[in-house]
């Protein structure tokens, strides 16, 4: 019986896919970042005053500054950039900080924070969101918008994938983790603290000790949960007078060019950055 000298085309394809996957995995390896010891608790206020230049690193790609430090109680994370599209994406969908005390890249526990510049700030000169919508609102609606945005920044969501729960807690740290946003010198700056030990209130903490190696994943952009719900659930209450003409069923569902037709949602590019770090100890070890 003669055997083919070549692999069947399906097998070749499978091998190629596996190799490509392996290469991608190697390319996505978490970068190692040093965590500094902090003798004093860091105030989570989005300001830079407690972060010395030596306690942060800059990632040229994708273009953000990251700072990590810890004391005996908390890990403190500083995350800053001056990309307005990202700031808008975070304000709309949040930035999720994934915490993996095994040092891998598991997305079991995370914190989502949707703070950021208000729409009014974004629409001022320098803001990239606009279009004249705010200008067409009544003063009362503008005020509601501002309040809504500030209340979103007052909360963080604790994500426990294993328990399949998402819990909103105040961002001021009373529920364990804390988060804050500011824009010192115009740079979008997010500061987050997470208890090292598992807390009693929400059972939320990294579950790690000084000296232990952990992984942190930052994820932002893409379609927000709110947007997805909106898209799945339909339009606003009260009907949609003035929809654009069409929607006839025969029209192309693509919306904008380049994308697959009828393939469902498209979104802003999702950003993800993973770092691995060893929690600092007071003796510097």
């Amino acid at each position, binding site marked *: 019986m003669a055997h083919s000298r070549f692999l069947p085309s399906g097998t070749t394809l499978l091998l190629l896919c596996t190799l490509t996957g392996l290469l991608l995995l190697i390319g996505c390896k978490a970068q190692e970042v040093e965590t500094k010891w902090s003798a004093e608790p860091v105030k989570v206020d989005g300001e830079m005053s407690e972060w010395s230049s030596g306690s942060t690193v*800059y990632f*040229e790609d*994708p*273009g953000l*500054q990251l700072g990590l430090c810890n004391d005996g109680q908390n890990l403190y994370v500083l995350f*800053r*950039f*001056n*990309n*307005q599209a990202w700031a*808008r994406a975070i304000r*709309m969908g949040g930035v999720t900080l994934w915490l993996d005390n095994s040092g891998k890249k598991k997305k079991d526990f995370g914190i989502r924070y949707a703070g950021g510049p208000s729409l009014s700030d974004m*629409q*001022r*000169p*320098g803001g*990239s*969101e606009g*279009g*004249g*919508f705010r*200008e*067409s*609102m*009544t003063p009362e*609606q503008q005020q509601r*918008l501002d309040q*809504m945005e500030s209340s979103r920044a007052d909360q963080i969501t604790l994500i426990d994938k294993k328990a399949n729960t998402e819990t909103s807690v105040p961002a001021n740290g009373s529920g364990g983790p804390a988060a804050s946003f500011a824009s*010192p*010198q*115009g*740079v979008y700056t997010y500061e987050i603290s997470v208890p090292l030990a598992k807390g009693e209130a929400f059972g939320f903490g990294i579950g790690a000790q000084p000296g232990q190696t952990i992984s942190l994943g930052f994820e932002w952009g893409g*379609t*927000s949960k709110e*947007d997805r719900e*909106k*898209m799945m659930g339909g*339009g*606003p*209450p*009260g*009907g*949609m*007078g*003035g929809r*654009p003409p*069409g929607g*006839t069923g025969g*029209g*192309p*569902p*693509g*919306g*904008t*060019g*380049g*994308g697959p037709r009828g393939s469902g949602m*498209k*979104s*802003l590019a999702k950003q993800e950055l993973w770092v691995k770090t060893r929690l600092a100890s007071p003796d510097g070890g």
Partner: protein
Amino acid sequence: MLFLAGCATVPSSQKNLAPLYQNENSTLDQESFAALWERRTVLFGQATAGRGPGLLGTGFSALGGPKAGGAGFPMNVAATLIDSLLLESGFQHYSVMLHMSPQEEEEFRQAYRRRYDPANHILIWCDLRTTWAELHLNLDRWTVFIEVRDDELRQYEPVEMLEESQAARPAVMDMLPGIGPGPGPARRQVHQKTVMFCFPRQDLLKNPVLSPKVKSLRLVFQETNDQRTKAEGIWVFRE
């Protein structure tokens, strides 16, 4: 995806959109307002040369003066084409967000129509910034027009320019290392202004400016006293 193409003074920026007839007929269940906004926004001018799309989003230039970088264009422009799909998406986005009643929503829509008249205007929202002198934001310095290309090339000037915010206090940008020049952080004063440019939807003969045959729409900023100083952003309508 942002493509850079050649231009007289600075590289132009281009966005690819579906053909106009598709945009006009599309329904809204595909993309979020933010995603639509992003896809209709072109960034061009001061900061674009040699930078990746991620950094373009900063909208701020590392260039300090007319000679720096050789680009010679004093402004950074973020221009968003407010087509019917984006407009409807914006109405829905804010009406949902603010839990508007049907009456409130209708008033919101009407207020927008009164202010910008999208039925008769092609609307382009522009965020203008400069790290140079504030006078560069003065619209009197600039000839702003659109170039529409189908079988021929036609140019139109805005019928109205609504300055939605004045160039007020300059923001001091703390440029992150790697974005600013040199190894350390650099600080620049940034002057900013937001303008809605309203271009005619019909020409003098009452023909539609954006017919289904239109292949591209180009927004051009040209300095009135020095026509070599020019930058442009392009929306290309493709199948």
